[in-house]
């Protein structure tokens, strides 16, 4: 990965994180405040991304929206990662019976189309940010668990685990010191790639009206609200669309970098 791309990606993500934590740094505008007199203004000095159909500042909405989208993207991925790692490594470490039961369970959940799983979760909890997060997380947990399990099986058979055993290291310490960290590596790479998928999946659910309530400035929701103005006021949808893409591209670039690094380390 060329260094400038890497720096650009990292820089962009830092900006996003700052905007999620301290949106006031970037804009003084209120993302929820409507101003009918200012509706549908093209991008200009006062409104870098223009205004939407009720006169809200699109830039402010995108900035404030980073909070929700990042929370969903990173939150869901983190949950999936942790839960997937726990389940997967348990399955991988346990003797045949436990592994059999757990991996069967993983397989069963994997047989559920992700989307159906997410829909059911949202139906149970009701739409909103939290359920969106849980739904997206739950949908991908099986994939993480599966990778964690396979990886654990590989690591478990690795020479250094046997070496630790022959040295007389206790099983618990072996798992904590050798198995888990080496299982985590590929999962982390998968997770950085997963952040993007989570954000787009959440946007899809928002589009179907299953995401946060309006007028929450969640990106998927902004995009979905702006879709009918593509011909007359392209900026409402195009800017958040670009920001989503840029976010996903950035996390993926970082993910690939991590992957390349860990590959180099393994060689």
């Amino acid at each position: 990965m060329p260094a400038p791309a890497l720096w650009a990606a990292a820089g962009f993500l830092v900006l996003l994180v700052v905007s999620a934590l301290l949106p006031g740094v970037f804009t003084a505008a209120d993302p929820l405040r409507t101003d009918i007199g200012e509706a549908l203004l093209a991008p200009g000095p006062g409104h870098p991304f223009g205004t939407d159909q009720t006169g809200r500042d699109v830039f402010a909405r995108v900035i404030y929206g980073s909070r929700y989208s990042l929370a969903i993207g990173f939150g869901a991925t983190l949950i999936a990662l942790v839960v997937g790692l726990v389940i997967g490594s348990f399955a991988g470490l346990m003797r045949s019976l436990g592994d059999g039961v757990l991996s069967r369970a993983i397989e069963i959940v994997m047989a559920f189309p992700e989307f159906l799983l997410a829909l059911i979760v949202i139906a149970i909890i009701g739409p909103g940010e939290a359920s969106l997060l849980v739904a997206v997380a739950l949908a991908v947990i099986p994939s993480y668990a599966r990778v964690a399990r396979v990886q654990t099986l590989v690591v478990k058979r690795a020479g250094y685990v046997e070496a630790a055993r022959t040295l007389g290291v206790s099983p618990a310490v072996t798992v904590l010191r050798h198995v888990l960290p080496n299982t985590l590596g590929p999962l982390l790479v998968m997770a950085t790639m997963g952040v993007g998928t989570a954000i787009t999946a959440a946007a899809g659910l928002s589009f179907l009206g299953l995401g946060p309530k309006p007028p929450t400035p969640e990106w998927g929701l902004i995009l979905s609200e702006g879709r009918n103005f593509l011909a007359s006021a392209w900026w409402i949808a195009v800017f958040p669309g670009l920001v989503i893409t840029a976010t996903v591209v950035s996390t993926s670039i970082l993910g690939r970098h991590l992957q390349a690094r860990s590959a180099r380390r393994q060689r």
Partner: protein
Amino acid sequence: QNTAADSTTLTYAINGGTLSGGKMDIHSSAFQATALVMRNSFDSLVYQKADGSFVPWLATSWQISDDGLQYTFNLRDDVTFHDGEPFNAEAVKANFEHVVAPETASADAASLIGYAETGGFYAGTEVVDEYTVRVDFSQPYAPFLQAVSTAKLGFYSPAALRENAAQLPAGGPGISVGTGPYVLSEYTPDQSIVFTANENYNWAPDGSTHRGAPAIDTLEFRILPESSVRTGALTSGEAQIASDITPNAVGQIGDEFTIENVTMPGLPYTLFLNEAHGVFADENVRRAFALGVDIGPAVESIYQGQAERAWSILSPATPNSYDPSLEDSWAFDPDQANALLNAAGWTERDSEGYRMKDGARLSAQWLAYNPVSDANASFGDVVQSDLRELGFEIVRDNREIAQYYEAFDQRNYDLSDWSFPSVDADVLRAHLHSGGYKNGSSTADPVVDTLLDNAIATSDPAEREALYQQLQQWNATHVAMVPITVPTAITAYSKTIENLSFDLYGQPLFYEASLTTAP
């Protein structure tokens, strides 16, 4: 060379996203989309002309008894259903009985026929002779003639009612069998509904410019819930007509199309403030709500000049009932709104700047069901933003339809919104009467009930008009509902369609229409 000259097909892009969920039954569905689609297959006893007057259709004539309790219809004797069954008094009776049967779980049609589990006044339908039928009421019911002019009180073949009653909500060929100019010949849920001309059709309403079988052989209704896709389908020539055009798309449609913009009669797009729950029990809060939202500019901007601001709970297009004196009778007044809220005791403020009383926040939960239209969603954003300035929190609660119904049935929400087209002002009975099935404000005022009951009991138009104006005035004072905008049905169609007419709801009527080859 148009080789299709011997077989003409017209493609019609409609929204129709709700039809697949068991909403194909004219008798049970409360959705307007059902009537829009099914009108082509279902005729009515009488036809209501644009001027509001009634002319014969399946009934050649009718008499209303002097006490207003009995409607007798003399039926045509040459009408057959699509399946060949004869249309007669028995068929009418079977259909009306189907409407009021508990299993049908009808909402709108039952209300139109005057039936309710308690407090209804529909007393039954009697076969007088083969082609004469009489409907009895327990109290005078003036709007009934209008009611039988709607598609929702159309007629299924008795055979369909006997054999396929359970499938009617799902609908389909051989199930949705009526007498109309078009036969429903193909139905793919969420995709398309195809009608083919009823070659035997010869019972158009009096005054129709066309006789016999319809000129267009095939009508294909394409269900396209995305409004941009509907517009695109029209402008790219894949469809010749598209309805539910959003205001912002109107400007993108070129001159080769005609735009029909019909102001809907009935209940405008209205916010219902639920008196039976939470903060809106207090009339001051309701009035503050109405004064605190800058409705005019929002309507102007969001509907882009395609819809008028509503001032009353009846649309100006509702015949013999509208009260124009309400126009411009109240204005956006945040100061007054603040004063009212102070008067109501909401004086403290919490950390987010919202008003508080006795430790509780001034907050109202807005119940709506998915999908919320873009315009309504935008309007909601404005309401929320404007009220926040007053320290009044609005929480949006968009639910899936099942949970929506649950909350609605229990009336445990503060605010909800809808519009309800109807040619008769009696639409208010369902919305304001203490027993009304869509009484979203939980209004239970004996004065209102009496006004509504009296209004349907009189057949004198002037008298009725006076009563409905009193009801509109009542709401202006008590603010059970806040009217927002008068909805319009915007339909755009290619100039290759000739003689297309529209009914009072702005729905295209294809019977008289024909297609020319492109100029």
